[in-house]
């Protein structure tokens, strides 16, 4: 039962003997390594700090836990994991979040 982290399986290409029984993921919490931000289709959320009222609504609605609250209480986006779904921009009551061109 060698590979413990699911994300390594595709890279390590374990033999059937090395694969944990039933390909169980034996180490918890490793989805943080999955850079799902690579799935974005051209648009990413951009937070305008001057409009943001820190109401936490985007944080609550984000399906990928990709709204980061900084030590100073400021809101930013974890682009390594944000899939660009745009829900945060839709739910923001202060129109502080805009979907912008990825490479704009």
């Amino acid at each position, binding site marked *: 039962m060698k590979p413990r982290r*699911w994300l390594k399986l595709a890279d390590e290409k374990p033999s*059937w003997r090395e694969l944990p*029984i039933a*390909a*169980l*993921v034996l180490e*918890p919490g490793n989805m943080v390594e999955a850079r799902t931000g690579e799935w974005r289709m051209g648009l990413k959320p951009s937070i305008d700090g001057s409009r943001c009222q820190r109401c936490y609504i985007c944080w609550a609605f984000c399906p990928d836990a990709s709204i980061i609250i900084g030590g100073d209480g400021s809101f930013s986006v974890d682009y390594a994991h944000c899939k660009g779904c745009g829900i945060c921009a839709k739910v923001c009551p202060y129109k502080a979040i805009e979907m912008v061109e990825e490479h704009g």
Partner: protein
Amino acid sequence: MAKRIALEGCHAASLAAKLANVDVIAAYPITPQTQIVERLAQYVADGELDAEFIGVESEHSAMSACIAASAAGARVFTATAGQGLALMHEVLYIAAGSRLPIVMAVANRSLSPNLNIWGDHTDIMGSRDAGWVQLFAESVQEVFDLTFTAFKIAEDEEVMLPVAVNLDGFHLSHLVEAVEPLDPEEASRFLPPRRVPSYALHPRRPVTWGAVSVPEVHTELKYQLEVALRRVKEVARRVWKDYGELTGRLYDLVEAYRMEGAEVALVMMGCFCGNAREAVDRLRRRGVKAGLLKIRMYRPFPAEEVVEALKEVKAVAVVERAFSPGATAGPLTSDVKSSLYSQPSRPSVSGFAAGIGGREIGVEDAADAALRALRAAEQGVLDGGFTYLQVRG
């Protein structure tokens, strides 16, 4: 040794599960298995069995609950039949693929339409490739013994797979016979509590079961199951040898009856092997050298044992309670044929569907199949095809 008691087929399965000291039973009632789980619910209600009985809303949920309980390390039992097994279908794969040693009794029943509550093997054959170990019982005693020993086979570390114990609906599930069960002490000595694996579900040790299986992994995952299933033959032999020493009842993957010098062999599974024995005796009295090969373990298929048992015969008559519409033959016939294909000298094989939807495979039916197969062989026909034996023209 426990004293002999009269027991119905279903209740033999219930008693075996009770003596296996199961932790969880999740089940939904369906004819003809209802008495199995009804009796278990009674054991739990009466305080005779310390187990969680989960009454669920469907068989799909029954197997799902079994899976979760088994993943947490519990010893788990359920039972179903016919449409219930069909409703479980997708979850059966998850039980096997997750390598969970669940034991399930299947009181085999035909599939709709039209509504038929009676016995045949079309239900379990529909789930043939789910990766379960499959055993077929002939008598009520065998229902007890196979169900009880199934836990030991399933939970073997080399195996870790679910086992289906098949008992023909009504003809076996509702048959009352004298049975010699085990004393509770004997039972717990032979089958101690399940050893909980290190990866079992536990709040303190989070493990993900059934994560996404990417193309780079899926082949290896499925192959792992294949290897485990193939190990079952050896493990079952070992378990049944130990069990035989305890009870005096010896079981093997296949069972030969009057196969010495046989020219024609009947190959069958399940309760009508009794009628087939009588057919063999009658044919022998008439000078026809007949024998019977009973298949007790259907998955993994005991190909080597079948080849060994059939190597001297001229003709083989596979009589099965199932069919595979549009295929070259029924499932058992196909397995027997493909097992024999590797042999330089092969007997003529004729396949027959019979005993469908509750119809009996009578002594005359079995004898008829054997004679037809023998005739095909004598005419030089290697492949006797697949015939619906009892269909009216």
